[in-house]
């Protein structure tokens, strides 16, 4: 295990029940503080890889180490705790509970993570407000139900939630696919800018190669996944 690595996979094999192998990754790692675009066509196993990284699934073989924790050696409950403590997760869309206010959606993470509560030292509310303000949400918008916000605003609230308590790793699963180009670029700018302040690792997953300019590194899933490689070779 290397302390400078945020994510380290070795010899990972995963298949969904009664299905052929989806992932076969002999070796892959992400350095701490890196901003990586992981690109893959739909169906190439992106979602499956994210399930492994977030600890929702475990591989049949190999090890998945995230922030120094070997997820394959932890119970599902412990993996849930690792996820709550070390990861900010941003979905494609529908990131928020529509019945809570934007503000309550942000501070919700503190309810599930002891580490983040400690990190915030009781300043969760203050930091949440600060984050939301910096992301351009007015005080009124912060207190309005999340369902009433525009998609762009909702995605920014999701960023605030992912960043609250400064987790070392942010995983974003195609968060810009519902945004137009202009708002997409604005979204990426603010996400990456705020992530860099705390040297946060950003793993950004997308099918869109045109985003590559925003990131330090651009990784094709097909490069690291041998299952995909053999398929693409077959083509």
């Amino acid at each position: 295990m290397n302390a400078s690595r945020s994510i380290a996979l070795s010899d990972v094999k995963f298949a969904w029940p009664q299905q052929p192998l989806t992932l076969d990754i002999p070796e892959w790692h992400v350095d701490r503080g890196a901003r990586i675009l992981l690109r893959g066509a739909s169906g190439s196993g992106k979602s499956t890889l994210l399930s492994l990284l977030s600890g929702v699934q475990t591989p049949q073989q190999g090890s998945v180490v995230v922030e120094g924790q070997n997820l394959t050696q932890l119970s599902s409950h412990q993996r849930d705790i690792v996820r709550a403590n070390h990861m900010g997760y941003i979905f494609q869309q529908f990131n928020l509970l529509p019945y809570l206010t934007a503000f309550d959606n942000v501070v919700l993470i503190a309810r599930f993570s002891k580490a983040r509560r400690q990190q915030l030292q009781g300043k969760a509310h203050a930091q949440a407000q600060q984050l939301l303000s910096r992301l351009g949400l007015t005080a009124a918008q912060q207190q309005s139900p999340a369902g009433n916000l525009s998609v762009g605003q909702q995605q920014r609230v999701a960023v605030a939630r992912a960043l609250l308590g400064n987790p070392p790793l942010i995983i974003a699963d195609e968060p810009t696919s519902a945004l137009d180009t202009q708002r997409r670029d604005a979204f990426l700018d603010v996400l990456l800018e705020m992530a860099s302040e705390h040297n946060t690792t950003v793993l950004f997953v997308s099918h869109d190669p045109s985003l590559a300019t925003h990131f330090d590194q651009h990784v094709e899933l097909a490069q690291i996944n041998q299952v995909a490689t053999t398929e693409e070779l077959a083509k």
Partner: protein
Amino acid sequence: MIQLALASLRSRRTTAILTIAVIAISVALLLAVERVRDQVQSHFANTVSGTDLIVGARTGDVQLLMASVFHIGAMTNNMSWKSYQDLSQRREVKWSIPVSLGDSVGGMPVVATTQAFFQHFHYGEHQSLNLRQGQVFTHVTGAVLGSNAAAKLDKKLGDALIVAHGSGGISFTEHGDHPFTVAGILAPTGTPVDEAIYIPLRGLEQIHGAHHEAEAEHQQHQDKLLSAFSGPPTESISAAFIGLKVKPLALRLQREINTQRGEPLTALLPGLTLQQLWKTLRLFEQALTIVSFMVVLTGLLGMLTSLLASLRERRREMAILRALGAGPGTVFGLLLAEAFLLTLVGTAAGVALIYLLQLSLNGVIQHYFGVILSIHWPSNAEWWRIAIVVVAGFVLSLLPAWRAYRQSLADGLTVKL
């Protein structure tokens, strides 16, 4: 978690409120059945007290009890005044009340009796009859009304009453030429006494037997004081209430009366016969209870349906919670908390509803059914029923919770909608 469940429920408030309403109504029904049963039973047991024996012409115990105490049905045979007198003069007998039944005023039963009735008849827990207005009849044509009878017939002191033959609402033979005058009105008792009209035996005899007498002589009789008469007031009566000096002798005396030679009579112990009667009603009572439990089950199944239906559209919600670090166990707990909240609030609302209904409808119920449903803290039996509902709600809510648990395990963070 409760806060989250509450917020989630609030966002689906129409369904939640409907679910709560259905549970509340079914719980109210369940409690109402129990409450009515309980009250009717005690009402039933309270109709007569202190009377050791009821005696009438030979018939079934239940028929004699129904006719003499509840004024339901009729006695086909009478017992002779002589038999009654023999009985009342026995050494063991402390007091006796003769009653003659079969007439009515506007559908309310008329009970012809003597002043002994007001002196000795007890109900509830040895409560005696009290007059709310006026006094006990002293004249042949005096009448004392039960509180509901007075209200329904809309009679005040001094008003005239026309007694009709037969117990139906409409009678073809009205004793119109012999009106009675309201002398007194009884305070409410919550027993069949409230429904009845009490007249002197001599007064009844007069309207039935008047045809034998000359019109002039009869006119003189009309307003006579009862104390002015001597001799038997009537030839036969329907039944007699008897109080004994030594209570345990009742069983022996009953057997003696039932087996004696001479006029065939039936004697019954009111407490025992009331119990027998109540047992025959038990089947009906149980059917009611079963039906009301079915209604509760329907209410809870309604909750189950709406929760299960909501799970599909809430997969995203579950995925978000999972992404934030909530385990499948938290998702399970969330659904459980939600269902439990619905059940608890629904049950509480049901309990509140029953009190609200009682407060607003008690007057009406008393007026139409003569039953006072006392407003009291839930009884043990009611607490049991409430507990059964809550536990059943909890058990049923395990199903959507389990489904959500499985769903969130399968979906993880990737929900394809």
